[in-house]
């Protein structure tokens, strides 16, 4: 017997005489439990990865002050889905003549559906786009205008509320935007009830909370952001399906000079656009006040070559008054 064989024999002897047949039923039971445990563990891993993502996806939009509306419904399409409670959807309604369209916001507040023209009646330099501030459940304009969900005036310089639209039920959770109605004067509608009450407006006027680009309206009307041009390009730009052109640049108004729009300022003192820059029509075309105002922002204009006529502020910031200040960096 070799040494290895001796070792084997001693070890086999030490291991004992044997243990009989395996308990197959017990092995099967354990095996079944193991498989169940493995399935449970796998489900737990999947759940631990997926559930936080789902929860974040559900909670995140509700934490944002502005409703991300997505592309507005097709211009001229008067039927839109009813928004979720407290939310808004965007739409376009045709203006008389049918060539141009007006932005409309439809909101659902405590089951009541309202539709308003999403342009504020107030601005010394034209109409300003209106946003839906979720925390306040109110329409707001960056310059401080506040309107109740029914479009009535709450706060700010305007003398009346927003233009509203009749809303009629349509099939399958949709509403039809109907005829425009004159805005209510100050002190009427829900706005009179809300005036003076604390509204959660802070976050909607807090610059840190605003969507990038200082353009809450781009957040509301992202379709417009797809085709931003310079003021110089605006008069000849191909308008979007809503009939408007969106452009970004400087508006120089006042200082005894004609109002002008340009991508780059010729100088800040006095504030001036290069010769030949587009000029808006209407009141703004006339030489303004002695104090010159420089506004940087996004504008919507009707491309009516060679001028940009009847433009609307989408999002603006006054960057200089009478040459004091400067254009924003970048």
């Amino acid at each position, binding site marked *: *017997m070799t040494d*290895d064989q*001796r*070792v*084997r024999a*001693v*070890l*086999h*002897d*030490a*291991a*004992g005489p*044997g*243990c009989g*047949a*395996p*308990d*197959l*039923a*017990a*092995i*099967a*039971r*354990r*095996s*079944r*439990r*193991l*498989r169940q445990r*493995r399935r449970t563990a796998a489900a737990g891993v999947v759940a631990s990865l997926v559930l936080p993502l789902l929860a974040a996806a559900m909670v995140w939009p509700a934490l944002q002050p502005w409703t991300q509306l997505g592309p507005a419904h097709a211009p001229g399409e008067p039927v839109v889905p009813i928004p979720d409670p407290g939310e808004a959807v965007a739409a376009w309604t045709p203006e008389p003549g049918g060539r141009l369209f007006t932005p409309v916001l439809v909101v659902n507040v405590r089951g009541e559906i309202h539709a308003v023209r999403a342009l504020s009646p107030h601005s010394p330099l034209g109409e300003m786009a209106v946003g839906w501030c979720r925390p306040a459940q109110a329409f707001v304009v960056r310059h401080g205008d506040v309107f109740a969900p029914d479009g009535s005036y709450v706060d700010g310089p305007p003398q009346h509320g927003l233009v509203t639209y009749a809303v009629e039920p349509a099939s399958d959770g949709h509403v039809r935007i109907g005829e425009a109605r004159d805005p209510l004067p100050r002190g009427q509608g829900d706005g009179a009830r809300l005036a003076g009450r604390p509204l959660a407006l802070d976050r909607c006027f807090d610059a840190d909370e605003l969507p990038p680009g200082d353009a809450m309206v781009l957040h509301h009307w992202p379709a417009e952001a797809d085709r931003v041009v310079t003021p110089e390009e605006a008069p000849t730009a191909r308008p979007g399906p809503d009939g408007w052109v969106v452009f970004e640049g400087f508006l120089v108004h006042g200082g005894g000079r004609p109002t002008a729009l340009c991508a780059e300022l010729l100088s800040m003192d006095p504030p001036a656009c290069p010769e030949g820059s587009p000029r808006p029509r209407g009141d703004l075309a006339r030489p303004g006040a002695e104090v010159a105002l420089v506004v940087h922002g996004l504008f919507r204009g009707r491309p009516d070559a060679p001028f940009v006529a009847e433009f609307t502020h989408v999002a603006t910031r006054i960057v200089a008054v009478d040459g004091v200040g400067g254009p924003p960096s970048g």
Partner: protein
Amino acid sequence: MPSELTADQAAFCRREHPRLVGALVLYLGDAETALDLAQEALARACAAWGRVSRMQAPGAWLHRVAINLAKRHLRRGLLGRRALERHDPSVATWDADVADRLAVRAAVATLPARQRTALVLRYYTDLPVIEVARIMRCRPGTVRALTSQALAQLRGELLHEAVADD
């Protein structure tokens, strides 16, 4: 009660069970725990049968699982306490064969873990050196060195007597 195992699984369990239990008895020095861990290792093999049945050496995989279970068991320290109780001289069953068997088990149990694993897998389970090396995740030369060291230590303690008796 039906075992709920397939014919292949049952045959595998019947074939591997005696060798597995013996290896674990040697490794742990405790037959009761060895039976329990052997059953657990076989249950794991059956739970993963789709994968295990396709392996080249499912027996080697089974022994690796069993040794890992035994190591974990030893780490928990339960066996140490039970072994002390078992080797208590006051325990009555003390004939010569049993004494030899327990002495060998005790001597194996005192070997360092890696030496013990190499010795049991190579000399009790009769796995080839290369298979033991794969189970222990080391080179074959290391397995040879470990078994050689283990044998030297065992000889020093008791194999010397066993060989002398021959």
